[in-house]
């Protein structure tokens, strides 16, 4: 029950993150393009495009890397042959658990970092840097939610690997 709710919640988060990612990517394409046009053809250097582009980029990176946790797209080195099913299954679980530590740091310290960011302001837009920094704890939190789902699946495959080989 808990896990079906979890995976439904994660489906929703993934959809929102990807949707936002598409919007952010489009935003920074347009921003940089505008910057070129404005400077070279309108002779009107824009100051804000640079920052709008970078903030969209940073947010899209942190949202996208959270989605990549759920899809298991973060690259790992495959040292052991794929037919060592038990070893690989156990290592997957260990790796899932270890990753939570970095995710926790992203949430906890990312949150204080964001608070600190309310007293630092960006050069061109003059908005608090907190709006930039907030992407880190948000990403960390989503990574934890996605990570729990991945861990649960990997635990299940450990069970399967050990039962399967005995049978």
């Amino acid at each position, binding site marked *: 029950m808990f896990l079906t709710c979890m995976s439904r919640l994660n489906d929703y988060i993934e959809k929102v993150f*990807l949707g936002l*990612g*598409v919007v*952010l*990517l*489009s935003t*920074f*394409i347009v921003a*940089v*393009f505008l*910057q*070129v046009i404005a400077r*070279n053809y309108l002779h009107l250097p824009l100051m804000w495009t*640079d920052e709008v*582009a*970078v903030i969209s*980029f*940073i947010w*899209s*990176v*942190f*949202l*996208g*890397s959270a*989605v*990549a946790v759920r*899809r298991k*797209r*973060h*690259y*790992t*080195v*495959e*040292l*052991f042959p794929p037919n060592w099913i038990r070893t*690989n299954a156990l*290592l*997957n679980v*260990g*790796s899932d658990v*270890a*990753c939570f*530590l*970095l995710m926790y*740091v*992203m949430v906890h*310290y*990312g949150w*204080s*970092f964001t608070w600190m960011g309310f007293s630092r302001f960006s050069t061109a837009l003059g908005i608090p840097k907190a709006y*930039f*920094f907030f992407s*880190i704890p948000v990403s960390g939190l989503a990574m934890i939610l996605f990570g729990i789902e991945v861990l649960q699946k990997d635990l299940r495959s450990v069970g399967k690997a050990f039962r399967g080989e005995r049978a």
Partner: protein
Amino acid sequence: MNPLVLLMGSFFLMIALKIPVAFALGLSSLLTIQYLDLSLFSIVNQMYASIDSFPLLAVPFFLLLGNLMNEGGVTDRLVKLSDALIGHIRGGLGHVNVLVSMLFAGLSGSAAADTAGIGAMLIPAMKKAGYDMPYTVAVTAASSTLGVIIPPSIMMVVYGAVGQVSIGALFLSGFIPGILIGLSQMAYTYYLAIKRGYPANPRKSLKEMVQATQKAIPPLILPLIILGGITSGLFTATEAAAVAVVYGLVLMMLVYRSLPLRQVPVIFAEAVVGYSLAMFAVACAGIMGWLIAYLNAPKLIAGYIMGITQSPLGIFLLIVVFLLIVGTFLSPITAIIIFLPIIQGLGNAAGIHPIHLGITVVLTLSIGMITPPYGICLLIASQIGEIPAPRAFIATLPMIGLALGIILVGILIPDLFLFLPKLLLPNLMK
């Protein structure tokens, strides 16, 4: 324990235990920061600072551009053009494979997009024409590394952004080695074609050649926009990349109508996840890079190595061997961020020109994309060809040897790679 040993040791242990490389970078840094009693705050701070960079925005653009070319049918046009030009030579499809990679490299900054797009088209075609699979997969993978050598190049963007070197000059320095490596692969293909009796495609008529060229001209204007814009100072590499993406979108959606509007968000979403992987690794590698600098490793290691050899040639060879090893299990971008401070420290101490160093590092790491266990191009190509990666790897060895030979010549004769940037960007090359 020496904190540097702890940092590196725990990192290698973690990636061996299947912790994703990006997380292992962050976790080993976390461990070392705790050990040194520094604030864990540095982790988020450095993570943020490493991707808070306008030049890095060129990475998503060049990656997206490669995907757009594949989806919008441009790869198909380039294959037809190459076939019309050189398909009639013995081993035709092999030559076509290399030439398409060279053309595609001028449009895309990523090698993986090159392997996936060209491999999906040419590997089945070559199989049908009777080429043996290990060679087919090998030439597809090896030639696609030209994607990061012939400009534009994501790897050079990251190198320039992190190492504070002109990205434009790096781009220009990639031309000559890219063409030489491509030609060496064609020569090798010709040799195999004679030995193994690979077929040739029928010679095309002049009319067909003209038609194929006309169809490929609009996309082939892109490299001119990118390089012309950068060398003339009209725009920076990042801006050139954005202009190229807009040009590509307009071309495919409005002119060719090969890319329906509803397909665009799908391609964009895939691109976001794709570049986030690389950029999250950059963010985490940034923490480690900061620690390495904090521990004064660049100076220590440079001092240690200069005690052994002081000749630029010796330093170069050490760097090449080191990067060949590192490249087998790290992605080139990750390797650049972690080790660039140390490599540049050595280069400065030995008096090596920063662009000469840069192009040598990029060329060497591009070989890492076809060496297992982590050779992304080799993995993609062998999946398409449905053969085990190690078998394909053996078939790439001669081509790796040729590329290494070219790197060595470039080390000995710096102006071979540097004369183009010196000619076109004299101010940046002093």
